[in-house]
Structure formats: structure tokens, C-alpha cells
């Protein structure tokens, strides 16, 4: 039983092992991990909704190699990202930067939540006010007369 499972797991893991050609990898595991982290944040320009880490487009491979070279040369993450952004624009960042241009993008959801909250609050307040007004207003003479008539009617039965 255990053997069969081991075989299945090995089968499932095989494509993972093949995901990238081995010659790309850096020998220092810490640097390799950083390079992967950076690559995951960069958009592949050919197949636009994949990161360069996930894509096997030739351009993505070239960019991965550049990321690894720069990491190996001791650049920090920000410097590597800046290098690619300088050439391909901020659009290559899968996670947009928090700056003035992207303010609406970042704060949009919170903004809509606040607007929604205000609308709900206003509607509730109006409803409550209407209920309160209805409860507080005494019956007019005409209403009083009709109520009495109805009560009399039921009593009469």
C-alpha cells in the first residue's frame, strides 16, 4: 500500500522537478529562493497573466536569468525589480506599487466600502425615522372615529 502511494506521489511530483531547466538555478539556496521570490512578482510580457517564474516563454527565461545574475551579484530585491521596471514599465509588477498614480486602485475597495456604509446608514436612518413618526403621531379625529366604528362593529357580533 505504502509503496503504491510513494509511486503515485513520485508521479505527481515529476512535473514539478521538470518545471525549470536545472542550469538556471543558483548554487546558493538562499539566493535561489530570493530569485524565485522576485521572479514571482514579475509579469511575463508574452503570456501576460503569468509571472516569469511560471512561464516558459523565451523572454521569461531570459528575464529569469537576468534576475538570477543580479541576485548573484549581490543586488537587493528592490534594485532587481527597479532594473526590470526601468525597461518595461511599472506594468511588469504583478503587485502594483503604492503611489499617487495607483492610489485609487489601492484605496478603491475601502472607498467603496465607506460609500456603501454611508448609503446603508442613511437608508436605515430614514426607515427608522419614518417608523418613529408613524408611532408617535396621534390619530386624527377622522381616524379615531373610524377606529371606534370598527371596534363597535366587532363588539356587535
Amino acid at each position: 500500500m505504502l509503496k503504491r502511494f510513494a509511486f503515485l506521489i513520485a508521479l505527481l511530483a515529476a512535473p514539478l522537478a521538470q518545471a525549470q531547466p536545472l542550469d538556471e538555478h543558483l548554487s546558493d539556496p538562499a539566493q535561489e529562493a530570493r530569485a524565485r521570490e522576485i521572479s514571482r512578482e514579475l509579469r511575463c510580457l508574452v503570456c501576460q497573466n503569468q509571472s516569469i517564474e511560471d512561464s516558459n516563454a523565451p523572454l521569461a527565461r531570459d528575464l529569469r536569468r537576468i534576475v538570477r545574475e543580479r541576485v548573484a551579484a549581490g543586488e537587493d530585491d528592490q534594485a532587481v525589480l527597479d532594473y526590470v521596471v526601468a525597461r518595461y514599465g511599472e506594468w511588469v509588477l504583478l503587485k502594483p506599487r503604492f503611489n499617487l498614480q495607483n492610489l485609487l486602485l489601492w484605496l478603491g475597495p475601502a472607498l467603496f466600502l465607506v460609500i456603501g456604509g454611508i448609503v446603508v446608514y442613511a437608508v436605515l436612518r430614514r426607515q427608522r425615522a419614518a417608523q418613529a413618526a408613524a408611532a408617535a403621531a396621534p390619530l386624527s379625529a377622522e381616524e379615531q372615529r373610524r377606529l371606534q366604528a370598527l371596534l363597535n362593529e366587532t363588539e356587535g357580533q
Partner: protein
Amino acid sequence: MRLAYLVPLVLFVLIGIGLAVGLTLNPREIPSALIGKPVPEFSLPPVEGRKEGLSTADLKAGTPSLVNVFASWCVPCRIEHPLLMGLAREQIAPIHGLNYKDNPADVSKWLDQLGDPFQRTGADRDGRVGIEWGVYGVPETFVVDGQGQIRCKHVGPLTEWDVENKIKPLLRDLTAGKESAVKC
């Protein structure tokens, strides 16, 4: 009728217009980060069988120029090629070729068969210089002014419309030393 009932209708129309505009945009067209910036530092040997290579200094020589990123394996390059040949005949500005990740024998044959519109060619075998230029899809065409600043970038094959309405007017304005109104 109360005005509040109109709110959903107005919202619907606004969102509809927004989405309709979104549909007409081309997501493949990425605004170039390099427009208005100087051309990257590079120096490339010529394509096999040609004499003049391409480097940064060639693009800062005082005359505006056109830099076309091409490859023999690129089918759309073949489509736009006659337009480049036409531009070269008109001699508005020198056209330089940046040969992206190509096989030396293939590109040499390609230029011999289809004609060579380029004054200079640079053979970018490993695509490194292409990345410096922010190239992501061949063909790409750059208009560079005499001081070596990138003024326009066109991604994908040029059409006759692009050449007549963007490339030529911009090159003419740059040659005349005028501030150009051409939108790129």
C-alpha cells in the same frame, strides 16, 4: 417619479460606457517605459555579411533615425518589410535594424531575398540588448531623435497607416528640428 429611481439607470449607463471603452483597448499594447529616455548603452556587431554594426553612438549622431527590431523567424516582420523598404527608398531618415535572437545564416539569407532597408544592423544573438530596449514582441519599431532620445515606440508590424500618420510625420518634424505634435 422620484429622482432616486434614476440612480441605478445612470450607474448602469456609466459602467456600460466604461466597459465598452475597455473592450476597444488593446491589452497587448504596453506603454513603453523608455519614451523620452535616452537609448540604452549597447554595442552590437553587424549581422553576418553586413559591414556596419549598431551601437549607442550611432543613434546620437545628430540625425533622427528609425530602429526596427526584427528577426527572420518572425512572420509579422515579413509583412511589414515592404513598408520598411519603401521608407528606405524615400530616404527620410536612416533605418537601422536590431536583429533579435536570430541565426546568422538565416538573417543573412532573409535580407538577401527580401531586400535590405537597413543602414546598420546589430546582431543581438542572446536577446540581451533587446531587453535593454524593453522589447517583448518582435517586430518593434522605435523613432529616435538626433540626440539619441526615444521618441516613439510601435509594437507589432507597422501598417501603412502607422507609417503615413505616425512614423513619417514624426521623422520629418524631428529632421526639421520642430516640436512634433504626433502622438505616439
